[in-house]
């Protein structure tokens, strides 16, 4: 028999799925029930994610092996059944996702959840997909979860319709469909070569391949890597991103902030598991490093050149992807902890930034007239059943403009990795660790470390220049600047995300320690592999076939 | 695989060959006839006796295999009988309308 704590790993997927399904039973006009259900679901997810985090940290006692939780779906042991695995990395990503999710959800209740239909179920499904992708220990199941959150992301991206969303959505969908084909090809090729789909088992099997099979395996991994890099928005596979993310409505874009990181997560996870057998090129560093550097520079260029604020944030996501790929592409595990720190910080920041950008746009037009603008832009037809009136933009909170300005300032600092917030901590940790990374004591840091340092500093400067320019243009330029009305429901999530970044910088020490432990467990994948392979099925069969 | 008795194998083989040939002839008709109004008749051969012969062979074999009610193949004929007119009627009608439109 299993205790209730034993079922926790499945909840981040099961809860949003059931919530989403229930929501489809409700008409869109029953908003209270819908939002209530949505908040109930995210609250449970948050509680579960945090509990799992503490369990992986060993702060809540569990009978997990190496603090890694393994959940055998359908009670079939690995590698035959699908397993969910909660280790530190998964738990961190889960918490990050749900924090972002809660903020986006709060934000959406001010306006966006009524602009089209089915917002709430789609929202739950995207959470389901993201959570599943972080939890699953099975390669094909990973693909399935990719598809789930991508499908939901298509829906959410198109939420509100309008030609901008649709045309950028078409690009987004096309690229991701091709990415899905690549995933399928590579995963099945891996199966064809190794005969397994379980990621932990793959870590073992990959080591036992003969030379020719090994080459085929590397081909498969290369294609898999490309698919992940498409998701991670690596240059030159990322031209779709700025437009798509800028077109999406703010809460959706906020949630999208973590989607590129799923690609990164997958790369890290696979890279880690294949480490003992010598990870193939796609996950092994050199490639990732080079592509990451390219992406980093591309993101920098984009940030410098872009005039549209929404796309600017898109480029900053690319920038952060590039930074992460570059850092993770460096040899060894020293940079992994700081990279994860950077990941968390950049996800929270860009998430907040997307919401903020939309709020700022209101200052450019009539503050109270968001509705008519949206109607025009998004082609909202007359809809007799839904009444948007009045409650669209809530009570104007005092000093709205000051709030926006301050938030923008904070976001800009965070993205540019300037002191004193978490962005700087991350940058410093990355650079400092990169310099520590010596091939041998005499020669000093490698060329790649220097390039990383230079690129990161240069991109930081570029970001300062660009965001300074944008900020000046947005806030200080205009006679047309209107004091926007913004609802408290919109202000809270932005503040929460930014405050989390601040909290992250204050508690940088313990967080960094935890992430360092995460990194070292990634460096020693045998913990993970053992936990998965040795997990015994639950023998108490009640029914029976 | 245990051997199939001759009283099944030989008729089944004959049915198969006949069915195959009839169907092939029908499809050749699809190529040979010069306009659609004629062509539409040709594949009916495959629908009817092409299918019936093949299914007779199948009935014989599945009688031997004896893992199902053996004459279930009759259902295929029934379904073909009930469904194939739908397409044919709509196609013929649309072709006639097309001719009329072009005629104008």
């Amino acid at each position, binding site marked *: 028999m299993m205790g209730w704590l034993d079922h926790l790993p499945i909840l981040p997927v099961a809860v949003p799925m059931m919530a989403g399904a229930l929501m489809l039973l409700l008409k869109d006009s029953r908003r209270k029930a819908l939002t209530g259900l949505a908040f109930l679901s995210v609250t449970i997810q948050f509680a579960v994610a945090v509990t799992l985090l503490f369990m992986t940290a060993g702060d809540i006692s569990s009978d997990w092996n190496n603090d890694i939780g393994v959940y055998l779906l359908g009670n079939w042991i690995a590698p035959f059944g699908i397993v969910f695995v909660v280790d530190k990395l998964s738990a961190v990503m889960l918490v990050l996702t749900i924090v972002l999710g809660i903020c986006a959800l709060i934000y959406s209740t001010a306006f966006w959840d009524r602009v089209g239909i089915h917002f709430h179920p789609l929202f739950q499904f995207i959470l389901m997909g993201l959570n599943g992708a972080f939890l699953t220990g099975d390669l094909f199941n990973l693909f399935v979860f990719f598809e789930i959150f991508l499908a939901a992301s298509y829906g959410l991206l198109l939420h509100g319709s309008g030609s901008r969303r649709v045309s950028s959505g078409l690009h987004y969908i096309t690229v991701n469909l091709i990415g899905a084909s690549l995933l399928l090809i590579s995963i099945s090729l891996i199966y064809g070569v190794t005969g397994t789909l379980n990621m932990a088992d793959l870590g073992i099997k990959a080591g036992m391949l003969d030379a020719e099979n090994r080459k085929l395996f590397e081909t498969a991994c290369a294609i898999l890597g490309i698919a992940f890099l498409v998701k991670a928005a690596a240059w030159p596979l990322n031209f779709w991103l700025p437009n798509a993310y800028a077109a999406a409505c703010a809460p959706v874009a906020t949630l999208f902030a973590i989607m590129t990181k799923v690609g990164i997560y997958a790369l890290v996870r696979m890279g880690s598991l294949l480490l003992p057998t010598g990870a193939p090129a796609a996950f092994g560093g050199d490639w990732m490093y080079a592509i990451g550097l390219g992406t980093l520079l591309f993101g920098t260029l984009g940030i410098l050149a872009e005039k549209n604020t929404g796309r600017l944030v898109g480029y900053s996501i690319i920038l952060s992807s590039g930074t992460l790929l570059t850092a993770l592409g460096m040899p060894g595990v020293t940079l992994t902890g700081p990279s994860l720190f950077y990941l968390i910080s950049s996800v929270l920041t860009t998430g907040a930034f997307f919401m903020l950008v939309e709020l700022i746009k209101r200052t450019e037009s009539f503050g109270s007239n968001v509705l008519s603008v949206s109607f025009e832009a998004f082609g909202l037809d007359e809809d007799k059943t839904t009444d948007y009136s009045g409650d669209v933009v809530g009570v104007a909170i005092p000093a709205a403009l000051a709030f926006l300005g301050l938030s923008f300032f904070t976001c800009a600092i965070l993205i540019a990795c300037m002191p004193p917030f978490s962005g700087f901590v991350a940058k410093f940790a990355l650079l400092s660790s990169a310099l520590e990374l010596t091939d041998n004591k005499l020669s000093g840091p490698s060329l790649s470390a220097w390039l990383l340092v230079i690129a990161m500093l240069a991109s930081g400067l570029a970001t300062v220049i660009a965001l300074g320019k944008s900020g000046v243009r947005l806030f200080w330029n205009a006679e047309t600047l209107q004091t926007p009305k913004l609802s408290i429901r919109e202000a809270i999530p932005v503040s929460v995300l930014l405050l989390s970044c601040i909290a992250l910088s204050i508690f940088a020490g313990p967080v960094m320690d935890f992430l360092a432990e995460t990194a070292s467990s990634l460096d020693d994948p045998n913990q993970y592999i053992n936990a998965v392979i040795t997990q015994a099925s639950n023998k108490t069969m009640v029914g029976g076939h | 695989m245990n051997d199939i008795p001759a009283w099944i194998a030989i008729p089944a083989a004959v049915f198969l060959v006949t069915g195959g040939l*009839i169907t092939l*002839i*029908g499809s*050749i*008709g699809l190529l*040979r*006839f010069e306009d659609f*109004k*004629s062509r*539409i*008749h*040709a594949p*009916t*051969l495959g*629908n*009817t*006796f092409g299918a019936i012969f093949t299914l007779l062979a199948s009935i014989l074999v599945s009688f031997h295999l004896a*893992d*199902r*009610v053996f*004459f*279930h193949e*009759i*259902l295929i004929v029934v379904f*073909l*009988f*009930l469904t*194939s*007119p739908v397409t*044919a*009627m709509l196609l*013929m*009608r649309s072709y*006639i309308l097309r001719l009329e439109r072009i005629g104008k």
Partner: protein
Amino acid sequence: MRKFFFWFPMSAFLLLIWMLLANALTIGQFVLGSILSLGLVLASQRLRPLHGHPKKTLTILKLICLVIVDIAYSNWVVGILILKGKSAHRTPGFINIPLDIRDPHGLAILSCIITYTPGTVWSGLTEDDFILRLHVLNLKEESDWIHTIKNRYEANLIEIFE
């Protein structure tokens, strides 16, 4: 009676299909099949407002035999025409046949017979006076075709359905 047992023909047909498909002739399958058949007929009632009421089983069997014979003959004829290719003297053409049958199911079965038989295709039915437009691959004698349709098929169908 007719109204009350509207479900019977269709249910029986469905049950027959079920039993043919089922792997085993067991009571369990029979019960399951009966439940499903009846349930489906009742559930689809609103989308099938008209019910066919075939009667006279013997006539049905007779018609089936007639049709099989005609199909066999047509197969032969059409097959020969195809094999002869251009050397065959074909005279394809339309004929119009006024129909007396009005029962939709009868009409539908008639259309099935005609179209399923090689060499003839149901090409149209006028909206109000039910004149059938028939395309025949090898139209030799128009009256033969009218005779075949009216007497061999339509009469029997009227007998069965009306």
